[in-house]
């Protein structure tokens, strides 16, 4: 079980690099969805003896929302606005990956003091993994221009927070998670509408053009 959980956590880390390095929006959406699936699997493998029906139901519902529902919504948004690529971000994709490697190193370094407070032996490595997911989500929000990519960054960040909760304790985060899930759902829903409207009004969905609206 130990090896499997570690490989899943490793995959979680690597998905972030795909998110950082890919310019295709559909690929990024699938990556975020895959992250959610991975998180579900990680929860189940690291829960061990604490595995209860309650945990399984919660995991399944999280999976359904973040792995299926939200990605479907985002794919629809991509189809509707007809844009499938992030073009000319503030930081290039190759550089993003390299900076991602730096971020990962930083995450490994700053998570050292927390390692002993992990819930179980298996979820030790989840702490840097979760931190890295949060950080790369933030990185994407900061450096990308398209509203849709920023939503993806937001989702990745949320995945990271969830993973962080999982790494520290198994049951407690679910209460938080349910509330957050609701928030995210509403937020993505609203953003989807906003993206659609931005696109309709301005024929593009670049957020940096919004600066033209200031005084």
């Amino acid at each position, binding site marked *: 079980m130990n090896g499997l959980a*570690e*490989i899943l956590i490793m995959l979680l880390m690597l998905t972030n690099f795909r998110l950082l390095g890919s310019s295709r929006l559909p690929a990024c959406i699938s990556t975020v969805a895959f992250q959610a699936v991975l998180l579900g699997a990680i929860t189940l493998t690291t829960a061990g003896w604490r595995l209860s029906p309650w945990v399984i139901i919660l995991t399944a519902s999280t999976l359904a929302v973040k792995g299926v529902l939200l990605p479907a919504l985002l794919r629809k948004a991509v189809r509707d606005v007809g844009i499938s690529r992030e073009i000319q971000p503030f930081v290039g994709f190759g550089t993003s990956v390299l900076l991602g*490697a730096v971020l990962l190193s930083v995450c490994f370094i700053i998570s050292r003091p927390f390692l002993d407070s992990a819930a179980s032996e298996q979820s030790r490595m989840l702490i840097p993994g979760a931190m890295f997911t949060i950080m790369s989500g933030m990185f994407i929000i900061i450096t990308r221009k398209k509203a849709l990519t920023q939503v993806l960054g937001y989702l990745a960040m949320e995945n990271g927070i969830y993973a962080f909760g999982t790494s520290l304790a198994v049951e407690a985060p679910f209460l938080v998670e349910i509330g957050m899930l609701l928030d995210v759902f509403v937020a993505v829903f609203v953003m989807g509408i906003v993206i659609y409207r931005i696109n309709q009004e301005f024929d593009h969905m670049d957020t940096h053009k919004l600066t033209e609206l200031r005084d």
Partner: protein
Amino acid sequence: MIQSMVHVLLALISAPLLQGVINRVKAFFGGRRGQPLLQPYFDMIRLLRKGAVYGNTTTWIFRISSLAAAAGPAAILALLPLGRVPAMLSFNGDMIVLVYMLAAVRFLMVLGAMDTGSSFEGMGASREVLLAALSEVAFMLCLAALAAAAGSFSLSGVYREMDTFGPVSVMSATVLLILLLSENCRIPVDDPRTHLELTMIHEVMVLDHCGIDLCLIQYGSALKLWVFSALFSGICFPFAGRSLWADLLAGLAGVFATAVVTGVIESTMARIRMKRLPEMLSLASVLALTAFLWEILV
């Protein structure tokens, strides 16, 4: 010890067979029967019967480049463990010697290409050295991760210890697979069978080699493929048998399995655009770095 010698001997004899296996796998995916398994040998024998033609501008550099192409990988075999079968020569730091011996061969090959004064060969040489510079970083980081995981600084020590399958070995194996593809000019990186000079990397560097020289180069690249296959399969298919003979057999099976994997990749993937190759190789470096950080933190 006897097993190590048998490994070197087998590698020297059967390295071209790997190419045959890859060709058969590709033919299978293409729905063809394909050429005989021993076709690479027939090609080499045919080349050995020919005379020699050298370019007007070429000097002794060109003439020794093909010699190095065959002699370098053959010398490297002495440092190469096959699974848990140790190398003939193993000492602290042999992994670095391996990387730099490959670099020495590349140095002579690149100079041989530039010796012809051909624009195409210069172009190929330029691509080759850039990709090599990037893959060297990935290679070194991967070796560092493996050394950290196994607690040893010699290849034989590393491959003796890496008998379990964890995240570090998954990541290192991926890096080694990318390196295998890029160093041996396999498909997502370079197409060994392309016929357009402008799109070639490695093949264009040997445009002016013919006859015995070309045979030496082909034999050398077969040996190089063997080296990388052994490095990859030792991590990817860890097997700890009861005796070294069993390990030797398992290692050989692993090498040929790697050839099959390579063939499958070549049949199912398209070439990556030349401009994106550095991205792929830096991704390999990032992967190796992740493996390393993971290892020192656990």
